[in-house]
């Protein structure tokens, strides 16, 4: 289903926040074409890791390679232009713009225009504008938001906001997309739909996905591999089955004293 080439390699990454170690020697590989989940208890450093990959935080030590190119400590926009797009735990949409406009802005990354020259293009609608419009419509149909193109993004229910945010990330035509708790705040039906969309993105668009998620059912259903982060360290990395059986993981989630049955399932 996926190759053996590492699309993203995180090597020995350390990050401190004012003396508090958020990440300690994190090593993680995301292979081309896979859906990789990053799980772990609250405060384990999952979002910090995503923020470091996407350039929001600088790392203290270590390196991050994307397509064998060092990308650590580049500004977020540069990293996005290299092909890593993301969504946020607290949805970051362009709230006052329409659904369609949100996507059209997403296409900007691949269709840059010159700021000052834009005012001189005296045609009613430029060709690139038409192209972006058409592509955006197609995209919204693809994620099943086609009937809501003219709605203001803020007025969408949270489930659709999350899908819109993913669609906008896709519009930048990334190689890798980082999803930060995409199922937070969604009900069971919405979460299933989200899972379907994530799978389709990988299968039909060939985009690699790294997601941070608390919803174990979603994680175990869609991921090819799962890494577990606890107190800033990776304590397990493997297939969903392997991770579920890993003793360290069970301890991290449930605590040391628990009497653990063999084959205990984390997602129950």
């Amino acid at each position, binding site marked *: 289903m996926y190759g053996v080439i590492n699309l993203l390699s995180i090597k020995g990454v350390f990050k401190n926040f004012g003396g508090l170690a958020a990440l300690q020697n994190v090593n993680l590989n995301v292979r081309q074409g896979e859906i990789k989940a990053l799980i772990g208890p609250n405060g384990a450093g999952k979002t910090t890791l995503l923020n470091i990959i*996407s350039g929001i935080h600088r790392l203290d030590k270590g390196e991050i390679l994307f397509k064998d190119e060092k990308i650590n400590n580049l*500004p977020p*926009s540069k990293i996005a232009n290299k092909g890593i*797009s993301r969504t946020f735990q607290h949805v*970051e949409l362009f709230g006052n713009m329409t659904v369609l406009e949100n996507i059209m*802005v997403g296409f900007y990354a691949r*269709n840059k225009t010159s*700021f000052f020259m*834009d005012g001189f293009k005296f045609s009613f609608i430029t060709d690139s504008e038409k192209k972006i419009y058409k592509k955006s419509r197609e995209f919204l149909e693809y994620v099943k938001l086609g009937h809501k193109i003219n709605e203001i993004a803020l007025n969408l229910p949270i489930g659709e906001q999350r899908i819109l945010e993913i669609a906008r990330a896709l*519009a930048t035509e990334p190689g890798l997309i980082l999803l930060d708790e995409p199922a937070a705040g969604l009900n069971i039906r919405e979460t299933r739909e989200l899972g379907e969309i994530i799978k389709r993105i990988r299968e039909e668009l060939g985009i690699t996905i790294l997601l941070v998620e608390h919803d174990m059912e979603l994680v175990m259903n869609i991921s090819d591999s799962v890494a577990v982060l606890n107190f800033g360290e990776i304590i397990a990395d493997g297939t969903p089955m392997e991770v579920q059986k890993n003793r360290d993981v069970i301890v991290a989630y449930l605590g040391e004293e628990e009497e653990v049955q063999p084959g205990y399932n984390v997602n129950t």
Partner: protein
Amino acid sequence: MKKEDFMVFIVFFIFVGLLPLFIESNYALTIGIFSGINALVAIGLCILMGYAGQVSLGQAGFYGIGAYVSSILSVYYGFPVILGILSAMIVSAIAAVVLAVPALRLKGHYLAVATLGFGEIIYVILNEWGPGGPSGFGDIPHFNIAGYSIQTTKESFYFIWIIVAIVMLYSINLTKSNTGRILRAMHDSDTACEAIGINVPLLKIKVFILSALYASLAGSLYSHYVTFISPSSFSLFYSILILMMVIVGGSKNLWGAVAGAIVITVLPELLRKFQELDILVYGFILTLTLMFFRKGLVPIISEKIKNVRGYKFAKH
């Protein structure tokens, strides 16, 4: 740009062009000229504030640079007026970069106070080192090109409003394009913009430059029209006036800036009787607009028009 935008543009400027045929009084035309000059500054602030979401209380600074640099160059160094204006625009652009680069991290109140501080520093500089100090200087040449000098009120009126039309056309085009959309996106979320590959700091610097260029151009045109300038025209009060124009007209719409500029420029002339009350009247207008007509004049009126039209269509 959409066809409707262009139609509104054509209708408005034909209307403005016809005005001098019906208005004989030079006094009324002069107010028209000042409205046009203020509109230029307001359009710039509208793009900066309404679209990109960056507050500025320092537009008077760029306006002052425009007026002083081009006047000084033409009076004391014999520059042709047009060259003086262009040089002033370059100086303003540089000043905008100097202000914008360190101000990038600032938002909201901090940005407001930083830009206010910038404007006041320019004001202090003009007072201290400008020719004539606080009393200013005169004998500034009228705008002239290829030996033809624009002197009469009527000529000046057309000249200024043609420039407003050009600037407006450029600005509508810009704001309705990809760039305009990105500016509005930045207004909503810096973080999301960065995440989809937009270089937010660079974009902010560019908008600051654009608004500074407009203000500078307006300042130069002002000085070459009135031919006498003193620092008092470039104080904090002017920055606030421009802000008021943008808000009263409607900050999310370029026509709002133009309408606001006309209203706020004409208003004190209508209120001549209560001349001591101008600040109070301004204050009330601004406060009431903010509290009850947050969108501003133009959006409210255009919504009304749309409703009426919608009603007519429904009847047929």
